[in-house]
């Protein structure tokens, strides 16, 4: 890793800072959906998508797996998909 911030202007040049800002915004969105009582299929899918985006940022930018051997990236992103898929399946079953 070779980067170094030369001035304050480079705040957004650091992927870790960008990830943090998106994570905060996504958290606010999930909280807002909860506060406004969002429920049902659309809300569930939206919340799972938000969680997937957040999880991916943690995996790729915080855990620094973006440039890791692909196997580990696939295992962790695959875990997100597995968990999201199982939750979606269970919620879908509950609608029947």
């Amino acid at each position, binding site marked *: 890793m070779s980067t170094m911030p030369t001035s304050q202007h480079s705040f957004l040049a650091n992927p870790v800072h960008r990830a943090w800002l998106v994570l*905060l915004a996504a958290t*606010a969105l999930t909280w807002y959906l909860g506060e406004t009582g969002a429920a049902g299929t659309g809300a569930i899918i939206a919340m799972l998508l938000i969680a997937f985006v957040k999880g991916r940022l943690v995996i790729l930018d915080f855990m620094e797996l973006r440039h890791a051997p692909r196997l580990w990236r696939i295992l962790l992103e695959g875990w997100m998909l597995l968990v999201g898929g199982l939750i979606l399946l*269970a919620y879908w079953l509950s609608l029947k």
Partner: protein
Amino acid sequence: MSEENILPSPTEPARRLPGDLAIWFFILAELLAFSVFFSAYAFARTHHVEEFNLYQQTLNLTAGGINTVLLITGSWFVALAVQAAHRDDKAAISRHLALGWLCGAGFLGVKCYEYADKFGAGITLSTNTFYMFYISLTFFHFMHVILGMVILSVLWKQSRKGVYGAHDANGLESGAAYWHMVDLLWIVLFPLVYVMR
């Protein structure tokens, strides 16, 4: 499981797994354990939809949201500590680790406030299925936050001795990966238990 590719490609920088390989197997095992708990919650809910939807609304959504912000920010600080190690800024490593630890302490504080509120209202594991899952899932995660903070304390102590830097950040990266996992788990747990219905 195949060995890592040891032949560097001439065109692309070698792909590198941060930290020790062992910590990643440990993280994978933890993630799988939690995926069982998350699925157990979601599938148990199919038999108690009304109960889950009703009692979920008694949870403190704002406390859960604040705790998400604390873990995300704690993870951010620890990612910055690793970046500081790579550019050999030793003072910044310790500083960011301490800030990450404080975020974890904040999380525990908010969670204790939440538990005091629920336990004070007489809610226990046997109150109903929803609270059984709420208490056990969040408490199991709570224990992981504590373990993560113990790891951060060790990293902080080592960083004060100048152990980590551009020459070696392996131990720091391993501990940081565990701390990010604690964050990752909460990113699923919060919407699942507090919000989704």
